[in-house]
């Protein structure tokens, strides 16, 4: 029960349901997982999850969590506002070992400037605030 001395807890809401999860046991690290899916017939993996396999038209799809790490395929520093982000902000494409390429905001790390091919790690964190809600999503950060 929230006592009167406690601050109002801001709700955390995902920017989109069902495509990622945060590691609750390890909340401080921001670690988490992107939730793809896999065609039971041909094995192709999709992120975001596909309703059916676009390759073989298989209808049976199984959950397929992606690896936490991938390699930076490309990146840019945006100087124009987009979505709810205030410039400048980094975005990039990360190639995951499962064969999918993920677009996401990138989190800069001191002393580790972005370069193509660098190892990146998925993090779950606040993207922006909306009303009294904290909107969370996935970003990638250079591996320490």
């Amino acid at each position, binding site marked *: 029960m929230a006592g009167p001395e406690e601050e109002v807890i801001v709700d955390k809401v995902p920017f989109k349901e069902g495509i990622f999860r945060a590691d609750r046991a390890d909340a401080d690290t921001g670690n988490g997982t992107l939730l793809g899916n896999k065609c039971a017939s041909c094995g192709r993996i*999709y992120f975001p999850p596909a309703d059916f396999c676009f390759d073989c038209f298989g209808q049976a799809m199984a959950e397929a969590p992606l690896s936490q790490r991938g390699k930076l395929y490309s990146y840019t520093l945006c100087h124009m506002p987009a979505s709810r982000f205030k410039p400048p902000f980094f*975005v990039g494409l990360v190639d995951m070992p499962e064969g999918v390429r993920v677009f996401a905001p990138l989190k800069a790390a001191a002393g580790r400037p972005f370069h193509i091919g660098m190892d990146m790690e998925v993090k779950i964190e606040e993207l922006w605030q909306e009303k009294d809600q904290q909107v969370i999503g996935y970003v990638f950060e250079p591996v320490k």
Partner: protein
Amino acid sequence: MFSSPLNNQEGRIFMREVAVIGVGQSVFGKFPGRTAASLGGEAVAAALKDCGMHPKDIQVAYAARAYDANCTAQAVLKEVGVTAFEMINVENACAGGATAFRGVWKEIACGRYDIGIAIGVESMTTSPIAGKLIPPEKDDLDGYLGMTMPAMFGMVARRQMEEYGATAEDFALVSVKNHHHGCLNPQAQYRKEFTVEEILQSRMISEPITLLMCCPNTDGAAAAILCSMEVARKYTTQPIKVIGSALLTGDYKYLQKDICASPVGVKAAQMAYEMAGCAPKDIDLVEMHDAFANEEILRYEDLALCAPGEGLDLLRSGATAIGGRIPVNPSGGLLALGHPLSASGVRTVCEVVLHLRGQAGARQTPNAKVGLAQMLGGLVTGLEHGVTAGIHILAR
């Protein structure tokens, strides 16, 4: 050499030879006080005057517009006294104009009509996206996460630098070239020379893409009048033949391993060359989608103007400048002439027609016999970027 294959059987449909006989362009620039109908009407009137045709002779119209009202063809044509026939409106992002042109070509090639008009029009300053980047669709995952056209081309540029050794100076060079071309075109939105240094020093948009490497927001329209070859001879001694037409949609994004490549652009080019019965070496000039300066270098390779991986060398050699072996965007391109989205696919055809007639003034490609007009556009989450390619090859 370039006798049209349209006289042959294509599939089971007998195709007639089709010619472009009239072209017209409105002023290009920022005109918040003018409607799309008024800009379109200006382009149509210019095209009619170009071939000395009475407005009532037109039998069918296709109009392309991305933003934002219904019945564009009807609204435009009422401005020039034309009503009461079949009018079709299309949207296909930046390839909308090419789609409209192809629509009219098909109608005439198949024998349904003898005379038709393709119109492309956009009033960006009065559209809901005035002054903004083109927004993502609602519920677009990547759009929520900050994806924009400049961001995409910034990432493409980084790959070009990594894989091919391109530099920001190379990208600037495309913009220098096309702005120089624009200075030679009285109808260009921007008629100003820039140095590589000035392009690089302009405001950063999405690294390494600067403001002067991006096409501007433009209001404007273009129109082209097509007809069967028999009818063409009643109006002109200089009909320009449509010898190749291809319009194609790309595939799922996961199949696009290399974001610098345009699988749909490559395939559409092959289809157009095959239909035209000519090879890339036969092309005398190209008008293409240079919405971002770095994009033009990639598209050289899609169109096989050079071998794969040699786009940079082609640019640096000067071959794609006016006076070079294969001038690309002698009009000034989207970068300098301007880019009213749906108008550009018709406007590129108009420019090629002027060169094939020998009427392109200071920017004329000497003795041009065959020209190619390409458009590529559309950002759809889940599909390859630049999801629609439209290509036309014309010959005198």
